[in-house]
């Protein structure tokens, strides 16, 4: 009953002209950047974060969240029509989506991607509605040791989920946490690692770091390639899948939804991992696995459902625990903090407008996206013809002005440039920069929980092993670390496939 009344309240918040407008704007921008190759949701969220400073907190988060799930819808269009993924979570859709387009079934592929995404998005939002309050009730009993243990476990799971080298992910995570400690000591108020630079006494400006690491580095990588895709010139055909298409896609959509939701909740998981897993599962359960890669509609339906469902899943830890599970939700957490909102289990009671408003906006946004992606698909097809040399100057200027206006500081522009170079170099060397953001945003909370715990126990680490939940979480984390070290659970197969596919898609 509480859930129902909360949800009704949430619809009351979202169904106002202003919030509907921001939800629509977010969905539109999300679809746009999903369609356009060369700019992903993370870079866009970092670029648009300064725009939200003057907005009410609900509108800001609703818009940013809509960009996140909107990009999942839009990404499939480019994958299917141009064989270039609009964003990373649609990489796998290229395999069968583009083949369908070549066989004259582009419309049906786009249709099943949009309808499957709608179904999965709505199902995962329903699961978020039901499960998140349960987790909130549970989390209210958490103290600093439980939070520390949960974050430590989250970081370890992230190491498993990251595509590519685990050792490199360790380096990136450690760097992220270290950078989060630069500035004032949260307990003593003394400066750390600032080397007398007054500009960083409050730490690095989050917008400048993220804008550089993702926005600028993405531009630099795209400038290297200036990729030209083979544009689809055939007619789209009917957008409505046939009865046979539905029969073939029903199972994959349902499986993709469940898998995506589950993987979205896990730290380090998210839309990209979900879509790859879904493809692997569909191929495994198929009676004719040889059809995959040659235009099997299941290879479009499953992954597209999974990447959308992962969005709802990834919002569970954010809304109920105040802990992001991936870089995009870390940015949403950053946006909440900038707005003066303290995320965590108290969010539901202290700011029900934000908590339920965001959940209600997911239902509304999914409907908006279905309308934007099916009847307006022709418009997105035209946009695909926009060359990158027209786009990049605008992205670059947005990055510079956005960074400056976040803190009214020229120093931040230099920070953005420096992190842009670092991000570019890291990505060239196959380092995945996303865990850096997760660590940078979670770092202060991790340190606070660790130090509060040890102050509570007067310096004794026994506090982490005498509280049952903390002990279980830390033992689990330690076991996973041990597995990583001895390589009992080899994740190399998956990692290699992910890295390979991502590389191939970006060629």
């Amino acid at each position, binding site marked *: 009953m509480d859930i129902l009344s909360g949800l009704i309240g949430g619809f009351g918040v979202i169904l106002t002209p202003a919030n509907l407008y921001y939800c629509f704007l977010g969905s539109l921008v999300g679809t746009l950047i999903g369609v356009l190759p060369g700019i992903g949701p993370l870079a866009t969220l970092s670029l648009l974060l300064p725009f939200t400073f003057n907005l009410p907190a609900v509108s800001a988060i609703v818009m940013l969240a809509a960009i996140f799930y909107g990009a999942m819808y839009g990404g499939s269009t480019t994958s299917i029509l141009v064989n270039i993924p609009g964003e990373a979570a649609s990489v796998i859709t290229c395999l069968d989506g583009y083949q369908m387009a070549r066989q004259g079934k582009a419309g049906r592929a786009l249709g099943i991607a949009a309808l499957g995404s709608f179904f999965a998005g709505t199902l995962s939002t329903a699961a978020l509605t039901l499960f998140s309050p349960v987790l909130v009730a549970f989390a209210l009993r958490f103290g600093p040791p439980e939070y520390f243990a949960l974050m430590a476990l989250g970081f370890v799971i992230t190491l498993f989920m990251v595509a590519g080298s685990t050792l490199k992910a360790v380096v990136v995570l450690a760097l992220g946490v270290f950078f989060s400690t630069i500035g004032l000591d949260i307990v*003593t108020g*003394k400066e750390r690692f600032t080397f007398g630079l007054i500009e960083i006494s409050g730490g690095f400006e989050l917008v400048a770091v993220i804008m550089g690491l993702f926005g600028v580095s993405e531009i630099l990588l795209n400038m290297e390639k*200036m990729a030209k895709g083979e544009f689809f010139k055939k007619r789209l055909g009917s957008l409505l899948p046939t009865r046979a298409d539905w029969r073939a896609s029903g199972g994959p959509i349902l499986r993709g939804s469940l898998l995506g939701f589950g993987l979205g909740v896990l730290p380090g998981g998210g839309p990209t991992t979900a879509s790859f897993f879904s493809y692997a599962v569909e191929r495994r359960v198929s009676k004719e696995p040889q059809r995959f890669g040659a235009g099997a509609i299941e290879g479009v339906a499953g992954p597209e459902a999974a990447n959308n469902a992962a969005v709802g899943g990834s919002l569970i830890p954010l809304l109920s625990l105040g802990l992001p599970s991936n870089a995009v939700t870390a940015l949403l957490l950053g946006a909440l903090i900038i707005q003066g909102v303290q995320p965590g289990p108290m969010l539901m009671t202290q700011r029900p407008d934000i908590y339920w408003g965001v959940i209600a906006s997911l239902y509304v946004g999914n409907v908006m996206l279905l309308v934007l992606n099916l009847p307006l698909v022709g418009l997105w097809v035209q946009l695909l013809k926009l060359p990158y040399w027209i786009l990049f*100057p605008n992205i670059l200027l947005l990055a510079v002005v956005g960074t400056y206006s976040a803190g009214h500081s020229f120093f931040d*522009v230099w920070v953005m440039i420096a992190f842009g170079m670092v991000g570019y170099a890291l990505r060239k060397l196959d380092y995945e920069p996303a865990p850096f953001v997760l660590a940078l945003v979670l770092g202060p909370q991790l340190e606070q929980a660790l130090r509060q715990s040890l102050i509570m126990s007067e310096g004794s680490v026994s506090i982490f092993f005498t509280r049952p939940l903390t002990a279980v979480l830390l033992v689990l984390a330690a076991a996973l670390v041990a597995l990583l070290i001895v390589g009992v659970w080899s994740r190399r197969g998956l990692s290699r496939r992910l890295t390979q596919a991502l590389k191939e898609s970006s060629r």
Partner: protein
Amino acid sequence: MRATEQVTNLVWVAMGVAIVWHAGQVGIWSANGPGGGFLPLLMGLALGCGGAALLVREALRARARRPRAAPAEDAAGARRRVAAVLGGLVAMALLMPLLGFLLAAGVTMIVLLAATDPRRWRWAVVLAVVSTLTVYGLFDTLLKMQVPRGPFGF
């Protein structure tokens, strides 16, 4: 690329050592429990150890050296475009406090666009002017956000 990898790994090790040393200066433990250097110390250790492990792994891989990948098509062009974007950003950061956003961005964009694709220099001028005015209008006029101003008031 292998040399770059190894230099990067050495940087991680050096950074790890520096962080550990500096964490000691900040204070690792105090009467109230962990000090401000405690978490940085752990991260310095993780960074240093991670870098060292990567260093060793890469050195071992060197024995089974893979054939060097063929240079990408238009590698020089790619380098030129990347350098142009970085140069443009640095120029903009230097010029903005002196000239304000509108002039600094306009001039930098013309040079940057012309440098990235010299064949389209006429388009570069048009695009630079339109992009700069659009972004300025969006931030300054529409969103009322502060944009750096120069001696001429814009």
